């Protein structure tokens, strides 16, 4: 009788070990790179952290499959390495010897990936589930490209500048003409010739090639 019990115990423990092994068909390999992510503030990976991992995964399974109550004992871990990698499998709470399908586990992890990462202060790159590619975040694409906005502002300013530059000498000339017509009415006849700085000098430039100033 005693031998039978012993044999049964051995068998059951053997069975219990079987679901989780490296390259299990329904299991996933996990790789953590805590020192890469956190540097000096890295925590040490120990039993407690492993417990948190199993609990987080149980949470993910619960969130995905609403009815079933997964527990920490449903997440079986094996083959830990100093690198901090290990394999895990998920057993169903309804049937402890049956494993949850790989696809279902994957979906559950994808849904709660963010929560799992934050529980460990890690990112998609430093907490890897080998075989589950992280969904890529699309680059932000605003509706109006920002460069068009800057373009509009700059062109508006430049256009205003051009108009100011073109119009201001016209305005000045108009004002000057008004002043000159006032002066002409006062003076008569000959203007002084010696003053070389006024435009009405003796040096007649009408034949010169140099005239380049705008005659607006």
């Amino acid at each position, binding site marked *: 009788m005693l031998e039978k019990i012993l044999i049964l115990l051995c068998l059951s423990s053997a069975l219990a070990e079987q679901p989780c092994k490296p390259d299990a068909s329904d299991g996933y390999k996990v790789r953590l790179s805590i020192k890469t992510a956190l540097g000096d503030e890295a925590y040490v990976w120990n039993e407690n952290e492993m417990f948190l991992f199993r609990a987080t995964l149980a949470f993910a399974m619960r969130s995905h499959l609403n009815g079933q109550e997964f527990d920490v004992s449903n997440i079986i871990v094996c083959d830990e390495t100093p690198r901090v990698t290990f394999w895990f499998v998920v057993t169903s709470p309804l049937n402890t010897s049956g494993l949850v399908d790989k696809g279902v586990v994957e979906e559950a992890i994808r849904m709660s990936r963010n929560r799992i990462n934050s529980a460990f202060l890690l990112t998609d790159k430093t907490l890897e589930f080998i075989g589950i590619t992280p969904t890529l975040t699309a680059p932000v694409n605003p509706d109006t490209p920002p460069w068009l906005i*800057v*373009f509009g502002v700059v062109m508006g300013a430049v*256009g205003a500048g051009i108009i100011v530059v073109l119009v201001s000498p016209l305005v000045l000339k108009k004002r000057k003409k008004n002043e000159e017509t006032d002066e002409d009415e006062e003076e008569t006849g000959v203007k002084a010739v010696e003053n070389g700085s006024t435009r009405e000098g003796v040096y007649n430039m009408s*034949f010169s090639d140099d005239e380049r*100033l705008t005659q607006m």
Partner: protein
Amino acid sequence: MKLKLPNPGLDDRIPSHGDLEKMEKEEAGDRPKWDNKAQYLLTCVGFCVGLGNVWRFPYLCQSHGGGAFMIPFLILLVLEGIPLLHLEFAIGQRLRKGSVGVWRSISPYLTGVGIASMLVSFLVGMYYNTIMAWIIWYLFNSFQDPLPWSQCPLNANRTGLVEECARSSTVDYFWYRETLNTSTAIDEAGGLQWWMVLSLVAAWILLYVCCIRGIETTGKAVYITSTLPYLVLTIFLIRGLTLKGSIDGIKFLFTPDINELMNPSTWLDAGAQVFYSFSVAFGGLISFSSYNSIHNNCEQDAVLISIINGCTSVYSATVIYSIIGFRATQKFDDCLGDNIWKLMNAFDYPENNITDSNYNEVLAHLNQTNPEIIQGLELQTCDLQSFLSQGVEGTGLAFIVFTEAIIKMPFSPLWAVLFFVMLFCLGLSTMFGSIEGVVVPLQDLRLLPRTWPKEVFCGLTCLISLALGLIFTLRSGNYWLALFDNFAGSIPLLVIGFCEMFAVIYIYGIDRFNKDIEFMIGHKPNIFWQVTWRVVSPLIMIFILIFYFVTQISKSLTYLVWDQESENFPTLEARPYPSWIYVMIFILAGVPSLAIPVFALFKFIQNKCCKKDHNDYTVDTISAKIQMKN
């Protein structure tokens, strides 16, 4: 060598010293003038210091033996650059005209030189402003965080990155695809890229608003466009020196390799760089000097501007290579980190077991014990020297290498904005000189009515350049620009430069020129100027021209193409030009150069068959004016 070619009627065509003094006193002539000396110097410095100082000189320096390159550069600066500059300043100041006016005054047969200058200024201005359009595009795109060239877009079904981007890099993709949308050959024109057209329109309008009234407006603009680059370079130097790896870059740049001095192409490249860097033969410098007062010390100006130009080249090379050193170190660290990651994951070593220092030993050990696994990992060889020499010149430096360095720096948008504003100012001040070199000869040639104001000339030039420049906004636009850069801005300038020197020294006469300079600045030019003007500089220019010609003719003409299908992607692939390109090359390089003899011939024929016209022409000259006053 007192060779002087016969040149009848020279005195009738140019103002005498007496006339010049009178013009100076009466301030007559309604000719534009500089507000102060600083404006003139800043404008000339701005014209000379351009994009070439930032992205051509550092590359040449590093590829031709680093610190040793300074030796040919400085020697040729003194023997070729300074004499040419002094010559252009002096002749412009003396004859008080733009380039066509000056050469026509010296001899009507030389009008072709002025016309060639105008054509070259026009062609170079066309493609140079396209580079400005690219800079504006990048500048406008720098006002966002994260910068658009730091991320790859996702592909259509959002499973991964776009293939072209994943195979090359984010900066490559942004440059070749999102900016240029480049095609794979120069024949494949593609269509006009609307965003490039907008940027080109922006560039030309910005230039127009600054050049609208000649030096009255550019003189104000240069206070900013000529000084801002130095400020930004200093900021980048300070930032660069605080980054990891910058000292490696500077050491790489300046490590001398004396053997390179034996290589003739080092001297050739140094000479060509000095020549193009000084922006002589464009006609712009002659124009700028003609607005000076008659007794301005042009000798001092020439030496000063040459020194500033040389120093700016060296300074910007230091800054650029400090940033390149940072980028190379980052890439090296990333590469090494990647390899260590792969090793750690393959062999399940705990983290931080393999570090940068013991990486090589661990790899050697593992290669002996498990060679097959190591093979399977496909580790990349990380070599800092190869990252440092991925250097580049031209647009590749600014839009690929430097932008990549910027995204690795904290506060990237700030550095991007600063960098592109600096490039913009450098380019804009050079464009001022180009526009001057086109607009003033146009007015001198009297092709259009003289009553038209300067604004219209300037506007017409900008409009026509914009219309023709739309070719650079096609999908193949980058290849067209490289074509223009190689041929429009190289051989014709050398030919014009040589003709200028020959004309002033042997047709105008070195004796007359010496007396003019003595009149202007108070002492005769010393033996250094005599020797360089008469013998050394022309010889150097002939050498460079012949070598240039020979190297261009001997090698088969190819251009670099961005082609996803090619085997070496993302490295650019060399592809031969189609045969009709040779027509284009002839137009770009041949037409300006041939304008000189063609015009001389034309004037010769005109004189021979129509002697009456010759008499009418003299009525316009200054000697006639003097007689009329008496």
